[in-house]
């Protein structure tokens, strides 16, 4: 274990080449999984007895909704690390996660509306699940806006980290909202504690799409963090080694 120099990896200069090497692998894994997931979801999985083919939105909606919450937790984790240990890379990772988290939250809301209309007869209701998911989108926007409003990146790191950590209470509210309140939104599609209620190909398609979303998120965040590292470490000597010499 001592051969892995964690503290060395925690410096942007050593993390940059690692991120650059990992992106194509995670990106390729995401593409392969998305192809399999779409094939299973659109062609193999049977039509649902109650919801017809409208349920096929689940293959986008559920992975997007899971990622919207999971990315927020990961972002809050790196914010906590950056506040505690004052590490630049942790703050950069949090900064890189926010736009992708917002993208998945947006997708969860839009695909939810597209499913709500045929299933409940309305695109939108101020129901606990939907309202708390909308608040999640505003938390991502607020985090990014606060960052952009502060010129000094280290101060922006600290202020936005505090905002992200305060907002983390919203995640369990989203997750448990269908249990705590009598919502229009249906209960959990998948439970770890009970036998699956969905047909096997439906469940398989959904899980494969969830893994595709997960690998995509890793790839795009590792790509964005490279841009952020270069933007923020512009004046560091090692950055010059990355770019071809100007003649």
């Amino acid at each position, binding site marked *: 274990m001592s051969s892995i120099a964690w503290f060395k990896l925690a410096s942007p200069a050593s993390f940059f080449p690692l991120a650059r090497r990992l992106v194509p692998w995670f990106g390729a894994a995401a593409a392969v999984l998305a192809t399999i997931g779409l094939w299973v979801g*659109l*062609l193999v999985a049977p*039509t649902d007895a109650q919801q*017809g*083919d*409208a349920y*096929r*939105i689940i293959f*986008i*909606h559920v992975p*997007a909704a899971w990622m919207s919450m999971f990315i927020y937790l990961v972002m809050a984790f790196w914010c906590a690390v950056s506040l505690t240990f004052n590490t630049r890379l942790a703050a950069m990772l949090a900064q890189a996660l926010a*736009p*992708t988290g917002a*993208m998945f939250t*947006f*997708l969860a809301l*839009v*695909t939810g509306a*597209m*499913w709500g*209309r*045929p299933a409940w007869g309305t695109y939108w209701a101020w129901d606990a699940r939907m309202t708390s998911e909308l608040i999640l989108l505003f938390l991502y926007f607020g985090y990014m806006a606060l960052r952009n409003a502060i010129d000094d990146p280290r101060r922006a790191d600290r202020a936005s980290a505090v905002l992200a950590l305060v907002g983390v209470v919203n995640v369990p509210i989203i997750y448990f909202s269908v249990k705590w309140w009598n919502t229009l939104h249906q209960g959990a599609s998948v439970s770890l504690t009970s036998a699956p209620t969905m047909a096997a190909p439906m469940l398989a398609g959904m899980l494969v799409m969830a893994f595709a979303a997960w690998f*995509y998120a890793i790839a*795009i965040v590792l*790509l*964005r963090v*490279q*841009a952020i590292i*270069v*933007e923020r470490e*512009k004046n560091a*000597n*090692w*950055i*010059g*080694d*990355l*770019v*071809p*010499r*100007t003649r």
Partner: protein
Amino acid sequence: MKEGGLSAFLAMGGYGFYVWTSYLVAAIAVAVEIISVRARKRAAMKSVRKSGHRVSVPDDIQ
């Protein structure tokens, strides 16, 4: 896709608009994100190059 062919597949049992809007929005969102993040990295690298950054390695290396 069992019976009915492509038109039945696209119709999605009458829910085609809702299903395909969801998939289309997702595809566009992912494409836009990939393009914009690539552009952001390229711009960041370019600005380093423009600033005439001093390279820390000697000339005989590379």
